[in-house]
């Protein structure tokens, strides 16, 4: 019962994040939404680590690891965003479309 509640929360967060990442024009919001999805996954890790079929510390470790990677990703993503802004004077993701047919 408790596991389902955590999973439902993670699912809701993930869907909000996914929706934002696919629809928002502002790249900063998109990055934030990606963070949201990552954190939804982290909730799953921790929830399974505590209430799963084989509770162990692995889930915690993995959650911490994902947080570290997410921090690095956010740094790189923001750096890329700033570089993009400098060259195109915009942060709209739909205008980053030079790579096409």
């Amino acid at each position: 019962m408790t596991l389902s509640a955590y999973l439902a929360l993670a699912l809701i967060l993930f869907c909000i994040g996914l929706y934002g990442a696919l629809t928002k024009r502002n790249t900063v919001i998109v990055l934030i939404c990606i963070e949201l999805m990552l954190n939804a996954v982290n909730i799953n890790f921790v929830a399974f680590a505590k209430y799963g079929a084989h509770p162990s510390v692995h889930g915690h470790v993995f959650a911490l690891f994902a947080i570290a990677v997410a921090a690095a990703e956010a740094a790189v993503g923001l750096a890329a965003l700033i570089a993009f802004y400098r060259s195109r004077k915009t942060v709209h993701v739909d205008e980053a479309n030079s790579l096409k047919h």
Partner: protein
Amino acid sequence: MMNLAWVVPLFPLGSFILLLLFGRRWKQRSAYVGIAATLLSLLWALVVLVDRLGGSTYEANWTWMTIGGVTLTVGISVTALNAWMLALVALVSWLVHVYSQGYMAGDERFSTFYAYLGLFTFAMLGLVLSPNLLQAYIFWELVGLGSFLLIGFYFYKEEAKAAAKKAFIMTRIGDVGFLIGMMLLFWQTHSFDYDDIFRAVGDGTLSPGMTTLAVILIFIGAIGKSGQFPLHTWLPDAMEGPTPVSALIHAATMVAAGVYLVAALFPLYEASHTAMMTVATIGGVTAIFAATIGLVQTDIKRVLAYSTISQLGYMMLALGAGSYVAAIFHLTTHAFFKALLFLAAGSVIHAVRTQNIEEMGGLWRRLPWTAPLFLIGALSISGVPLFAGFFSKDEILAAAWTNGPRLLFWLAVAAALLTSFYMFRLFFLVFSGKARHHEDAHEASASMVAPMFVLGVLSIASGYMQTPWFGSFLGEWLTDGAYRHEAAPGWIAVLATIVSFAGIFLAWLMYGAQKMPRDWLSARVPYVDELLRRHYYIDDIYRLTVVSLVSWISRLLAYVDRFLVEGLARLAAGIVGAAASAGSRGQNGQAQTYGAVTVAGLAILVVIFALTGGYWL
């Protein structure tokens, strides 16, 4: 030596290959290669001939391939006929090679010319050594190819190009008949080998109806190659080729191939009365038909071309009348005197640079060698006694009288009259009378005169192989002693003599002494004259019927190709193209769209996975 007869055709083949490879470098020296190769061929062929004179038939076969239960063989067969043809072809070819050195001197594609001559000689020598129909057919087609290349040698002239094409296509039409006939024989006897087929006729494996059908089809091939009516029209046009080519192809070798083929299959023809009658009729009709056209031609080579057709008709008539020996005898003498006439005509053309006989005249003194040699050839072809043509033509007339229908005999006599008339019309127009502005006309070089001289001697001497007086050596040898001289009435020889002198006298009256107006015929019956000048409208009829029909069909097919076949191909290409451009429009650079598509795809996979429980693969 007969077991090495297969070497004979290899010399000209070697010359062909060498000249293709090095001809450009050797230029005028190419002639020596060709001459040397054909001389070796000739010597070898003579050795084989001498061997065969004293020996018996040699035949060797090697397996070529086995398909199911059928084994195809290649080989050589040195029968009397083959040994004879081998020497004849090699001799004429060698003389033409020698002659061409002078005639073609200075031509830009001199070495190519010799290469083609080599190829042609190879094909012809191979043909006359073939022991089976399949091999003969292969060489038969090679002969066609060689003639195509040689007739179209001056390919920058439109007429030469057209003539080469015409020769190829018309003989191809005949070849289809040959092919079908060959297949029929194979179907019935399971063998291409001449001997097997003859045996099958003998023991009744081959039904008479089938024999008749097959040999008539094969005869169509011979009609095409030998320029018989109605497939003769390519031969006069083929005069666009260089004159030595006319001498080689249209006198002694290629056109003789048809006669040779019928002679080689003679036991088969003898088995069918209908086929023999067909051969005789076509031959007789062609003889008179071509002779009449020859009367009004104004191109020196075309007169000779029509006389060739006419003489080939004689040979076919002889074959159809059952006289194998007379046909081969006439083939031999004709090869000599017609090659002589063509080479002499070439010498005249070389001297005056025109082929129109109305622009010639008075060349007797200017060409002290060519003129008498031409006269010998003309006397020989006209059948004047003591010349070779007299004996062979006499033999044919005798055969036609004893075995053939009377009508064909009289046609042949009439053709003989016309022959001597048009030959001497040619002679008087070219050599007698006033010289017409050919001040610089002079005799050709020794390399051109010498071959003519040899042929001139042979045009007289070759007749004495088979005479009523000294015995019939050739006939006895060709038929292995089974030959008996036809007991023809003696008046035939007298009649032939009278007829040939009458023709000469008439020609002298009209063109020599000019006691008779030249337009005697055309003034009285202008439509006949017009008919002859237009070659009986045969070409026009072909153009209006066959040619227009075929080109109409091919235009129709061109539309089918353009709109139907090509349309289908375009449709297929268009579908693929449209799909590709639709797909490429999907790559629009919007990362979020990609993400959405990926998520949608993932969702579909998840749904499938959930519904099937993971066992759907």
